[in-house]
């Protein structure tokens, strides 16, 4: 118990890193997801293909391999040098972006065709229709799935400990081997993750209630 309490400040620094990487990665991932979803829905074939290939590659390979590929693989090329944090954020963002793009696409496609027709008949262009009419409804509708993905992504960041990013998990390992109090340390780390995810869920429920489609 003492070991856990003593380790707490050190672990909290790890939590800050975890939250920082998660925050930046999920925002970038969301932007990627939005762009890729729109690429899938254009009538321009090459854009559709690129989007499809990207999603399939991410879905068809383990995240750990993606992390190794970007941090070790890309870094082994002479003209690329990424530090751990950047490589970590990129990997997590690209990974989340692929899954989010599928959710966003499904959300967009779930909006009734009549909405587009009403908007176009008023004189809105296709782009304006997407921006003012379709996306606001689609994003509201996909909020629960978005929360789901955010929780998965937050947990995925723990894998970044393998490339030496000093996140919550990596700091847990350091403490566990330094103190020989594995049980107490990993219990503490687990509780911290649990609380953060619980807060995330509450936050999302709040936003969902607030922006519910009436």
């Amino acid at each position, binding site marked *: 118990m003492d070991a856990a309490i003593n380790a707490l400040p050190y672990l909290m620094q790890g939590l800050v890193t975890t939250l920082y990487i998660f925050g930046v990665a999920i925002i970038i991932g969301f932007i990627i997801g939005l762009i890729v979803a729109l690429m899938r829905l254009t009538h321009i074939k090459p854009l559709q293909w690129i989007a499809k290939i990207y999603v399939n590659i991410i879905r068809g390979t383990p995240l750990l391999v993606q992390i190794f590929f970007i941090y070790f693989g890309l870094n082994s090329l002479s003209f690329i040098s990424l530090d751990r944090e950047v490589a970590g954020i990129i990997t997590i963002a690209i990974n989340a972006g692929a899954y989010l793009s599928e959710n966003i696409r499904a959300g967009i496609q779930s909006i*009734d065709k*009549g*909405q587009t*027709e*009403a*908007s*176009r*008949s*008023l*004189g*809105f*262009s296709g782009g*304006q229709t997407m921006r*003012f*009419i379709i996306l*606001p*409804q689609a994003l*509201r509708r996909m909020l629960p799935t978005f929360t789901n993905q955010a929780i998965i992504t937050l947990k995925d960041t723990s894998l970044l400990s393998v490339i030496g990013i000093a996140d919550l998990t990596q700091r847990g390992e350091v403490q566990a081997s330094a103190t020989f109090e594995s049980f107490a340390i990993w219990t503490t780390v687990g509780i911290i993750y649990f609380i953060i995810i619980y807060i995330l869920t509450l936050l999302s429920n709040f936003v969902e209630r607030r922006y519910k*489609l*009436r």
Partner: protein
Amino acid sequence: MSIVQVKNLKKHYGQTEVLKDISVEISEKEVVCVIGPSGSGKSTFLRCLNRLEEITSGTILVNGHEMTDNNSDINKFRQEVGMVFQQFNLFPHKTVLQNITLAPIKLKGKSKTEADALGMALLEKVGLKEKANSYPSQLSGGQQQRVAIARALAMEPKIMLFDEPTSALDPEMVGDVLQVMKDLATEGMTMVIVTHEMGFARDVCDRVIFMDGGYIVEEGDPKVLFTNPKHERTRSFLSKVLQS
């Protein structure tokens, strides 16, 4: 002055020809009702007028614009053509007032104050001023349809298209919507109305177009067409719908 000029309009869906050589002119301030059996192409015809459907061949002139010209700005042309749908299609994430003001603000550059004033005036006209801050899902079907009419009017269109505006409504809601349309007709709005409301067609329209199988079979003054149709197909259609 004709505000709509349709010449030799044809429309295919794949192999099936849905509109077969339609030519028609509509004058300013004219109220035209389109009637005909299900599947005869009434909606398709109406939707070609603002290019919600791409046509196969022919020309469509609305307000002097060639609607099918790929080099011109269809979005600008559409601003002058209001459309009201059977299923209302209000924007569920916007309030009633926002539904009406969105297009004037974004497309005509109106200030919010200006657009709100216009929106409230239109809501007053359709008798729904007190619903300005409600959401569409909080309204009855008839109320939603009247908001949809107000939304279309907010762009100050030169012509209004209606596709069976009362077909999705409970019977007791139909009257209010028809009344709003009647008022519009009296004010001199040009209207093309696809409808199954034969009473309305007879009383309000200047001209009735009867469509069947992708053709305009017969058209004319409703009083004449309803009492003394020239074509056998018109007669049999009317005897069916007027009975029920």
